[in-house]
Structures are given as C-alpha cells and as structure tokens.
C-alpha cells in the first residue's frame, strides 16, 4: 500500500521521536526496580493489553504484533465456516461463499455505533464467554479497541479502497484464497451458542435484542471481536519474546554457564558486576534453571525485596504464582511451592533463632554485599560459621566491583566471577579549587566553581547534544547555596533547569528529577550522595564531584550522632564518576586534585564501625552467640563500641550482669525494632496506653513528617501552630497524626492540608502502616489481645459510598498506570521550573487516599485519635513515663543560667555531655517559655524559670527527655519532651544512692534530689520501692504468659491484672504528688567527695560484729541480705538502692546520724507485720516484701474474693433514680420495689 505510507510517516516519526526521549533500556528500568524507587515499574511498562498501541496494530504492519492493515469491508467468516477441522479445504469454499453473501447483503456500515448497543451485544456475545468477562479489564479494553478499529475502518472507507479488482485468479497450489482478506490471517475462532443461534435465526431465543442489530452487523461485530482476540494474543506473545530478548541482552547472560558451573563446584562464589549488569534479577533464575530449589536471596532494603520478587516472578512467568515470593518484616507472599524467596538480611538472621542451620534453604544469595550494611556484615560472619555445619549449603555473594578480594579472602579465596558492567567511556578532568579563590565567608560554600563548570558546558557542548548534569555535594546547606546561584545563571541563559536532590525532600519533589527537560535545556541536579547508589537517574552526561560527603558518625562516649563532613573514598569517587557513563560517553569534573584523590581512603567505612551495636549485640546473644567480642567479623568494630553496647543493654535491663538475656531482653530480641522503641511498646501494652504509644513509636521510626520547608516557611509555621504541644515534640507528632486522621475522617482532602502545613503526607501513611505492624507484633507475642474487629455494620448509604470509592480507586489506578508509563516534561519558566502536568501528583495521592479509606475503618481511627486529644494531665504524665521507660537515660537538665540567655542559647546537660542546645526544629526552641513551669501554690511567689528554681524547692521541677543527640555545627537535643524530674529519675535510674534518712538521693551518680521534709522523703522512697517491684513483677508475669502459653489459649494471668490496677493507681498517685524538693546536677569535681566509701563505717550496723547483727536480725524478723556496697559504702538494699552511702553535707550530719540508728515502730504496708526496725532494716524488709507481690498475700486474697463476690452480686443491681429522695441508688429489682414501698407508707 505505497500511497498510505506517506500518511503514516508523520505519526510514526513523531512517535519515534517521543520514544527516543524517554528511551531507557529495560535492564535500566529493572535496576530502578531493584533500587527501590517507588513506582511499580514492570506492570506499567508491560501492560496487559496496551490499547494505545492498537493503532499500530492497524497502521504499522511492520510491527511484530500488527501484521494486519485492517479488514476489508464486508469480509466476514461465520463460526460454522471457520470451525471445521478441514480448514484448508473449506477455506476455498468460504471464499466463494463470502462472495455470495457480499452480493446478498449491503455494504457494511462503518459508521454504525456498536457502543450504543452494548446491552444487546453483551447478551449475544458475553453472556457465557470465558474469554472476556463482562466488567473485566480485558472487556473494557475490547470496547476501546472496537472504537479505534472502527475509526480506522472509516478512514479506509474514505479512501477509494478497491483499486485492485477482485479478479478470479487460478487456484493456488496450497489451496489458498487468491483474494486477500485479513480474516484469513486469524488463527483463532470463537465458539458461542448465542452467536450461532443469532446468526441463524436473526434473534435470540431467550432475550430481546435491539432491532438495529441485524445479522450483518452482528457478523461485523464478531469480526472485530476476532481481530481483538488475535491482537491480544499477538501482543502477549510479543511480551513473552521481549522478556527472553531482554534477558539475553543483559551483560550477565554471557556468564550464565560459568556462574552455574562455579556454584556447582564450590560452596561459596562471588559474583561481581556493576549496576545494570543484571545480576540481581538473573542469578536467582539461573540457579532455578540449574535445578536448585529453596533459594533465599537477601537484600538490604525491604522495598527491593518486593520489587525484585515481582520482577523475577514476571520474568519467570510466575506473576500470579508463588514460585517466586518475598518475605519482609511484616509481609509475605511465600507459600509451600515457593522456590525463590527474596527477603531482608534482618529477617534471615531472625529466622536463624528458630532454625539455626537454616535447613529450609539450599542456596543463599546475598546481594549488595559491597554496601556493607551492618546486617550484611553480620550475616556474612554467621554464614562463615554455618558453612562448617552445612556442607551442602551454597552461598553466592553478589557485589559491585568494589573490594571484591576482601569477600573472596574472607571465604577462603572463594572463586570470583566478574561481569563487566555496561559503561561508556568517561573523560576525567581534575579542576581543584584554589584556596585563594575560596570565598572569605568560610561557613558557606562558594558556588562559583560549580557555575564555572556549568558555563564551560554551555560553551563546549551545543544544546542540541542532550545530556544532564549531576553535582555531588556534601549536604543540604551546600546544595541550597549552589541551587540558588545556579538558578540565577539558569534565568539568564535559559539553558538549565536546576533542582535539588536530598533525603529530606518530599517524595513528589524527589520524583521530579526523573522528568524530562525540554529541547535545548539541561537538567542540573544538585545532590547529596543519595544519587551515588540509591537513586539512579538516566541521561546524565556530566558529573561534578565536590569530593565531600557528610556522614552520620556515632560517638559512643556520649551516645551522640554527629553529622560531619569527610573526604569521600576512592571507591565513592569512582562510583560518582560512573554515573556519567550509563547512557552514553560522559565527562566527570573533580573539584579536587589528583593527589587528593590518591590520598583518599580506599573504601568507605563499613556501617558496623560507625553505628551503635545495641540491637546487634542483643540479637547475637539471643542467637546463642554469647560473646560478641569473639565474633569473626569481616572487619571488626572497635572493642569499645561492643563494650558500650553491652553496658547500654545492661542499663536498659535487657541483659543480666552475666550478659544473659533478661525476660525483657528476650522480648526485645524478638521485636525487630530498636531497643528504645521496643521498650516503649512493651510498657505501652502493659499499661493499656497502647494507641498513643504506637503512634509515637511509629513517628519516631519514620522520617519526620516536617519537611525542610516546614521550619522556614512562615505560613506553614503559622498553620501548624495549633498542632504544637506544650509537652514536647513527641506529642506534637501525635497531634499532627491525630489531626490528619480527623481531617480524613471528616471527608476532607488531606493532601492540601499537609502541604499548607509543610508536612509530608507520605510519612503519615507510613506511620499508619507501621502502627498496624507494631500492633500485630505485640499481638503475636501475646502482649496485646487480638480483638476481632466487630463486623462493621454499614448503612445502605455507606455501602453505596464504599462501592463508589472502590470503583473510583480502580479507575484512578488505571489512569495512574497509564500516567507512569509516560515521563512528564518539564517546562522552562520565568524564575523557576514547573512540571507540566501537576495532576499526576494529585492522582497519586488520591489513589493512596482511597486505598487508605477502603482499608481502614476511619470512624474507629478517629475514635482513638479523639481519645488521645482528650487526654487529661494524668494521662499525659502516664504516657510520658511510658515513653521514658524506653528513653531513659536520655534526660537532660537545664543550665542554671538559662533565664539570662537568649532563646537559641538555652543550654542543657546530660550526664555525659554538657551544654547541649535545643534543635531549632523542636517545639521548645520556638517556645522556651514552656520550660518555665507554672508556680507552685506552696512555693514563694515571683517569676520562676526552671533554672531559677535552682536551690529552691518545688514539686514542679522538670527535665527534658530526648530521643537522640545530634551534632551538626553545634550539639543538639533532638525530639524533646518535658517530664516530671523526681518521678522520672527515681523510677528509672539504675542506681539510687541515699543518705541515712533518704532526704537526699543521688540518681545514677549525677542528679541530686533533696527533699524538704523527711516524711515525704520516706513516702517517696516507699513508693519507689513498691512501684519498681510491682513493675518488675508485672513484666515478669506478662512475659511468662507470652513465653509459656504459646500454644494454649493465651490468657492474661489474673494476678497480672491485679498488679496492673495497683500499679496504675499507685503510679498516678506518685506522678501527681506535690512533694517539695530541689534538684541539681552533680559536677564531676564533686564525685570523689560524694560517697562514704567502703573503708569508712557509716552505719551503726556495720560497727556490730556479725553475731550481733544476726541477733538483731532475728529480733526484728528480717533477713538482711544487704551487704556494704564495695565502692560507695552504705548498705546495698537491692540491685538499685544503696542506703546511707552518701557523705552527709555538714548541716544534715548530726541529724542524719541520729535518725539512721534510731529504731522505730513500723508496720509494713503490704504484709501488715508490725516491727521495730532501723531505717535500713525497714527498707530491706519493704524491698523484699514488695518483691514478692508477684503472689497475693492471704489478706489480699480475702479482699479480692470479697470484691469478686460483690461485683457478682452487683450484676443484678441496676442504677435506680428515686425522684422522691432525689438519689441514685444501686439496687436489685426486688430492692427497688421494697424501696418504692417505703415511700408509700
């Protein structure tokens, strides 16, 4: 059809052009998947049936799936004709018969609109069809196809078609019809009774059909239908073939047999290949094809597990099976038939606690070992040990071509298969910044060297040569400096679109870097090292490398994180350079000298040497590796770091003195969360305050929802004001989350709401997910009851709404799938750039919104959210204590001089680190007045700040509890909340050292509390003993329950319930007590004069001989187990309390000596025994007696039984209001009658 060609040229060429711009090779796309970019690529890239391409099916006969050029009008083949088995013989007949029909019937009406008769056509064609189910996606696609097909037919009809006359030609020797018709090229036919009947009789037996649908038209429709089936088949076949082709085009394909061979021969093999070589997706498949089953593939990131499992499932044609599956922390698709399982390293390690030899796997593939995550390193160590016990186990390490020998040597020189990546040549240029050129303002980065390179590019490379620029800088402020300057340049030249890229950007903002710049304009992406490995951007041709990186380092001494700028490693330098050569030859400008490069560290420091090892050590002990110090690490962390973690775990009550797990340690080792978060969750569930604790724990575990804009944009700051909590940042987060739920429940859009407040909505969705996961975790471990959500009752209106939402979600998803196939195009704007299609973002968030609405009971969520909004001060205090149980010893005390300082200079001290500041993003930084407590009734009048209370007694002293310390240019407290000082410290300190009469308590050796009255001191210490004992016993009971009755029905011990009540009541009382005290920080210089020490006799009791002591003990009927503390002196009453070990300050001296020795009459509040005891003896008895409250005393039992009886009786009583005596009484029915009678008489 030569004359058609011209017409087709233009759309085709424009298509190609378009295609070129967004062209990305399939393995790059795959790489994105593995990298965990959030879009779900393969599905949108390989749509089921892509109708948008059906145009090509008609118009481009060259296309693989589109050999047709439309059906000649009027041509049709009936079912009977096409159905015969002797097709060849009949083909000829049908040819003839068609002629007859064509003579019989009029020309087919190409303008006939079938879509108007959907209902009737459904009756004829789709009533019983298992090909297209009504309402399915295929069905909808078919109708789209039909419209396009008819369009095409109309165009054809417009042109004079039958130029070549239908000559009667001699018969072909294969019995082929001489007159061409596309229908002869369809190799499928459809059987349908309804269609058959209709074509015979012109009507259906059991249903009415529109009159307009004549037999001819139904035939025409059937014809289109057959073309659709053929089209769909061809397209799916093309998809199959493309999968194979793409696989064979990957660099690693050439190494398939070598890899398989090596794995069969050796126990450990290293596969090294750079980004894009295909190792992550292909090696597991090679193993499967080689006959291996039970293949585990670990990934450092959860999201990579999911996307890889989908991708490999798709490639192995198992998209809908479970042969390829994933399992991550809270989600799994694994079944019995699973052969390849993608899972996180953390999860595989966890599986070893129940299956130490990992017998469920035959091959373990560890991907991205070069990234050297803490779990990767640990896993390698564990596997090294495991290999001795499992000679049949195969281990494959997959790495980029970085430091390969390290891995190979670690596993006794394991063989290495090196796969070259797909990298184009890169021209390297060193352009060191000369010192003199540096701007005098040294704290801000001078952007001019970066601009010079941009100008250089402008001059040297014509704008018609595409290729974007990627600049690597160390941190946010550096990025902002360069972005600002570069945008000025861009405004002048109109040749650049400048955009930042860093972790604090919102997801949408981050996604913009993938959009396409218009012709003649380059993108200039200014990024942190996030673009080095985690985000892959195509089309980058130029790299500018500052050679710097800001990394979080951890200072174990202060448990403080520190953001510092370092030179990068040579490996990083190469990685950065390589980013220029992914799609074509590139150029890399290094803003440092070659000699600098030579001096760089060879490799980046592995994570295990940079981060706290708390969770790791805990897990090692739980796995039966009792001594972390002796573990054969690939590259060991410092011994100091291990020791610090062991100390921390002991302080947290997770490890015993012998470094074995305590019950709480055991529970913590099972929860795959940070120790601090884990403790909060356990306490939250024990105290039935779980919902807010879940929210806060989730908020602490995700990135802050406050974007970088949130703290600089004045409108956002103002709009967010109502969310701020006077109690601190964790409560502000809780408020924000609750309010977000509320806005959603009210049926309003939350996207705009978030945007206005500078909040990143994605984080809230993550929080919801995490909350649910934490909850399930606690339920699985018996810490929370599994409440079966009562069948939600919906009114018909609500049901209709749900249905509507579901339908809309489907539509939106489809739209989105189409949308994400296309890259958006950027527009060059006056002062900034703008994304040409802003609607996609809306769509994205709409989909999330609807998904959320459909999967959550918003009313219920709002109910709990409302609950937390109606917190009383009592609730808040309890909540604070729960949070502190995890956070302690993360507390700081205000500096004495704060009231004389500016807001930004308010200083705080922790035990180990003095002079910390409030981070500017926190609530208290902008409202330091909140840290000035309201005046006590009892205390002196006049203004008082926390600091001014120094040396003054109050019941309102507060400390700041914080989540972490961060040092950037200054050391900061992050995520702070204010907590009642005395209560927090006395409850959570590991050591309480008291004076003889307990009016002076030194907590953990750095905070000194002094009570005004001896009586209240006595009361406090008694409360602390009771609370801590009850707390411990309650935890023990609850954890016993969860450990022992795992199979049996899980039920909370009634004694635990009792203790819960006691604890809640007592704790509330304790928190609201208005005991007057002073608090101060003990300075380092004072420590040596703080304790009496072991040599000096402080107590009368110590003066006595052992005999005398025994006698006395006998008299008072107390077993004094307490021994003098070896260092501090005094008597060690229990694991935290040491009595009378403080050197008395001069004033209290005489009085103290006197009281300590004095024996007084005392009745134990628990066992009710009366005795005459000294202070120490009393403490000893109380401590021992309360420690036994895990079981009830006889007296308590009787009381309990009576109470029970009482409530049973009360079951029959109801509340009755008597109008005559105007009283509400609780009476049984008969009693009510009796009562009424009393009034009658």
């Amino acid at each position: 059809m030569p004359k058609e060609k011209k017409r087709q040229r233009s759309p085709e060429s424009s298509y190609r052009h378009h295609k070129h711009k967004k062209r990305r090779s399939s393995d790059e796309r795959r790489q994105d998947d593995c990298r965990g970019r959030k879009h779900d690529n393969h599905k949108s890239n390989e749509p089921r049936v892509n109708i948008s391409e059906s145009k090509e099916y008609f118009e481009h006969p060259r296309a693989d799936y589109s050999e047709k050029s439309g059906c000649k009008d009027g041509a049709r083949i009936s079912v009977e004709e096409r159905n015969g088995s002797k097709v060849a013989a009949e083909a000829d007949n049908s040819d003839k018969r068609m002629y007859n029909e064509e003579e019989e019937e009029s020309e087919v009406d190409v303008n006939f609109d079938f879509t108007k008769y959907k209902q009737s056509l459904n009756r004829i064609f789709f009533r019983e069809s298992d090909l297209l189910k009504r309402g399915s996606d295929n069905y909808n696609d078919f109708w789209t196809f039909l419209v396009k097909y008819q369009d095409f037919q109309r165009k054809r009809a417009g042109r004079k078609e039958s130029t070549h006359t239908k000559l009667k030609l001699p018969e072909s020797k294969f019995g082929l019809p001489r007159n061409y018709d596309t229908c002869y090229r369809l190799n499928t036919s459809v059987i349908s009774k309804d269609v058959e009947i209709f074509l015979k009789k012109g009507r259906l037996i059991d249903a009415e059909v529109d009159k307009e649908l004549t037999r001819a038209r139904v035939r025409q429709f059937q014809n289109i239908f057959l073309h659709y089936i053929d089209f769909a088949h061809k397209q799916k076949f093309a998809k199959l073939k493309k999968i194979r082709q793409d696989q064979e085009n990957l660099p690693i394909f050439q190494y398939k047999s070598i890899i398989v061979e090596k794995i069969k021969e050796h126990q450990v093999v290293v596969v090294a290949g750079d980004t894009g070589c295909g190792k992550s997706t292909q090696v597991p498949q090679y193993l499967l094809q080689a006959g291996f089953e039970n293949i585990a593939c670990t990934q450092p990131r959860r999201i990579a597990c999911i996307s890889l499992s989908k991708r490999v499932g798709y490639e192995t044609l198992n998209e809908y099976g479970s042969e390829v599956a994933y399992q991550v922390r809270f989600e799994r698709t694994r079944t019995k038939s699973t052969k390849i399982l993608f899972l996180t390293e953390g999860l595989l390690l966890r599986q070893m606690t129940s299956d130490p030899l990992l017998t469920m796997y035959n091959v373990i593939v560890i991907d991205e070992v070069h990234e050297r995550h803490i779990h990767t390193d640990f896993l390698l160590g564990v596997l090294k040990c495991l290999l001795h016990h499992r000679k049949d186990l195969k281990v494959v390490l997959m790495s980029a071509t970085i430091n390969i020998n390290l891995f190979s040597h670690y596993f006794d020189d394991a063989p290495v298969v090196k796969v070259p990546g797909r990298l184009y040549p890169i021209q390297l240029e060193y352009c060191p910044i000369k010192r003199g050129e540096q701007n005098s303002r040294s704290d801000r980065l001078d952007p001019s060297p970066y601009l010079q390179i941009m100008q250089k590019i402008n001059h040297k490379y014509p704008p018609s040569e595409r290729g974007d620029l990627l600049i690597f800088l160390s941190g946010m402020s550096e990025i902002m400096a360069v972005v600002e300057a570069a945008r000025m340049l861009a405004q002048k030249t109109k040749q650049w679109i400048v955009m930042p890229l860093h972790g604090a950007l919102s997801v949408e903002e981050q996604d913009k870097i993938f959009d396409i710049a218009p012709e003649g304009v380059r993108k200039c992406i200014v990024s942190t090292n996030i673009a080095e490995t985690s985000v892959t951007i195509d089309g980058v041709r130029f790299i500018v490398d500052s050679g710097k990186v800001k990394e979080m380092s951890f200072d174990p001494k202060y448990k403080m994180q520190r953001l510092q700028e370092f030179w990068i490693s040579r490996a990083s330098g190469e990685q950065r350079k390589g980013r220029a050569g992914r799609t074509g030859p590139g150029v890399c400008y290094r803003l440092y000298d070659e000699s600098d490069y030579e001096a760089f560290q060879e490799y980046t420091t592995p994570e295990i040497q940079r981060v706290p090892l708390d969770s790791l050590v805990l897990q090692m002990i739980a796995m039966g590796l009792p001594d972390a110090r002796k573990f054969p690490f690939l590259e060991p962390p410092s011994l100091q770091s291990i020791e610090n973690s062991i100390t921390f775990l002991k302080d947290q009550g997770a490890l015993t003195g012998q470094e074995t797990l305590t019950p709480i340690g055991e529970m913590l080792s099972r929860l795959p969360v940070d120790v601090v978060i884990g403790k909060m969750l356990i306490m939250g569930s024990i105290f039935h305050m779980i919902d807010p604790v879940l929210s806060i724990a989730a908020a602490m575990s995700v990135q802050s929802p406050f974007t970088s804009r949130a703290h600089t944009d004045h409108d956002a700051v103002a709009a967010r004001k109502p969310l701020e909590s006077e109690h601190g940042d964790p409560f502000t987060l809780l408020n924000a989350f609750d309010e977000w739920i509320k806005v959603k429940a009210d049926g309003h859009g939350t996207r705009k709401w978030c945007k206005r407040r500078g909040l990143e909505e994605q984080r809230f969705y993550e929080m919801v997910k995490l909350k649910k996961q934490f909850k399930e975790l606690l339920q699985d471990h018996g810490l929370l009851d599994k409440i079966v959500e009562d069948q939600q009752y919906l009114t018909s209106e609500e049901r209709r709404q749900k249905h509507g939402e579901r339908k809309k979600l489907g539509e939106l998803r489809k739209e989105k799938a189409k949308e994400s196939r296309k890259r958006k195009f950027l527009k060059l704007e006056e002062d900034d750039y703008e994304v040409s299609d802003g609607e996609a973002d809306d769509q994205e968030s709409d989909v999330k919104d609807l998904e959320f609405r459909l999967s959550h009971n918003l009313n219920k969520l709002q109910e709990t959210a409302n609950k937390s909004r109606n917190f009383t001060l009592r609730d808040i205090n309890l909540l604070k204590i729960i949070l502190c149980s995890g956070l302690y010893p993360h507390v700081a005390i205000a500096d004495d001089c704060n009231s004389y300082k500016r807001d930004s200079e308010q200083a705080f001290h922790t035990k180990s680190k003095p002079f910390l500041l409030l981070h500017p993003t926190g609530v208290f930084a902008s409202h330091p007045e909140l840290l000035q407590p309201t005046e006590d009734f009892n205390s002196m009048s006049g203004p008082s700040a926390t600091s001014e209370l120094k040396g003054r007694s109050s019941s309102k002293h507060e400390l700041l509890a914080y989540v972490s310390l961060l040092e950037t240019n200054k050391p900061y407290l992050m995520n702070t909340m204010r907590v009642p000082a005395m209560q927090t410290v006395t409850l959570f300190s590991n050591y309480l050292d008291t004076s003889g009469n307990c009016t002076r308590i030194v907590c953990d050796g750095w905070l000194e509390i002094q009570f005004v009255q001896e009586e209240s001191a006595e009361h406090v210490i008694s409360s602390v003993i009771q609370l801590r004992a009850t707390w411990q016993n309650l935890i023990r009971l609850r954890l016993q329950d969860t450990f022992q009755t795992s199979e049996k029905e899980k039920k909370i011990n009634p004694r635990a319930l009792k203790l819960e009540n006691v604890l809640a009541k007592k704790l509330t009382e304790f928190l609201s007590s208005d005991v007057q005290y002073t608090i101060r920080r003990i300075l380092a210089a004072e420590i040596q004069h703080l304790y009496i020490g072991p040599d000096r006799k402080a107590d009368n009791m110590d003066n006595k001989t052992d005999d005398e002591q025994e006698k006395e003990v006998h008299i008072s009927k107390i077993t004094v187990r307490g021994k003098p503390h070896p260092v501090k002196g005094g008597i060690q009453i229990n694991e935290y309390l040491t009595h009378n070990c403080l050197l008395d300050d001069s004033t209290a001296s005489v009085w103290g000596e006197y009281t300590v020795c004095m024996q007084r009459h005392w009745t134990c509040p628990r066992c009710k025994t009366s005795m005459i005891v000294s202070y120490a003896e009393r403490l000893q008895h109380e401590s021992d007696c309360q420690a036994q409250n895990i079981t009830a005393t006889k007296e308590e039992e009787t009381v309990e039984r009576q109470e029970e009886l009482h409530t049973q009786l009360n079951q029959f009583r109801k509340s009755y209001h008597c109008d005559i005596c105007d009283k509400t009484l609780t009476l049984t029915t008969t009693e009510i009658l009796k009562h009424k009678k009393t009034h009658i008489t």
Partner: protein
Amino acid sequence: MSKEFICSSCNFKTQYHYFGKKPPFVKSLVMMEDAYIMKDPFSSEGGIIPLGSHCTICGKSVCLSLECSIFYTKRFCVHCVKENISEFPLEIQTEVMKKKNK
C-alpha cells in the same frame, strides 16, 4: 513439568501447556491450526497465548512472530513462503519483500 516449545527459526524457547486445536483452558475458543498453547501468565483471569505451530510445507515448528512465520488460512514458515512466493496474494508478497529489504 511442562514441555518446551522451540522455534526452529529464531530459537525462542518457552514452556507450553497444550498442543492442538482445542485448548482446554478456554472453552469458547478454537484454533484454526494445531498450535502450541501456553496459559496466559500475565493475567489472573485465565486466557491463553498461542506460541506457534508447524509449517504446512516443511513441518518445522515455528513461532508466530512475523520474522518466523505467517498465517494465511494455514501456517507457513517464512522460508517456505519465500520459496513459494508466487502462490501467495499480492499483499503477502509485498509484505515479505519488504521484510527482505530490511
């Protein structure tokens, strides 16, 4: 274990689930030739993908991509079409010739 279909022309290999005219997976569909059929792995709604068939003339198995075969009331491998080009209608002739030029 499923059996493997191999195209003699392009070497494309994949598993197939049925060979013949009436794939049992889809009741309302019949093939006009004895074809290698795979259950559609890209859909959860059932369906099939025809993979290829045998050439009517030489009997070799060929996949249904245009590089390897054409269907015109019967399956012909591209090689056999070229050998017997005059037996085919003009439309197919031009199509095959164009391919040659490529």
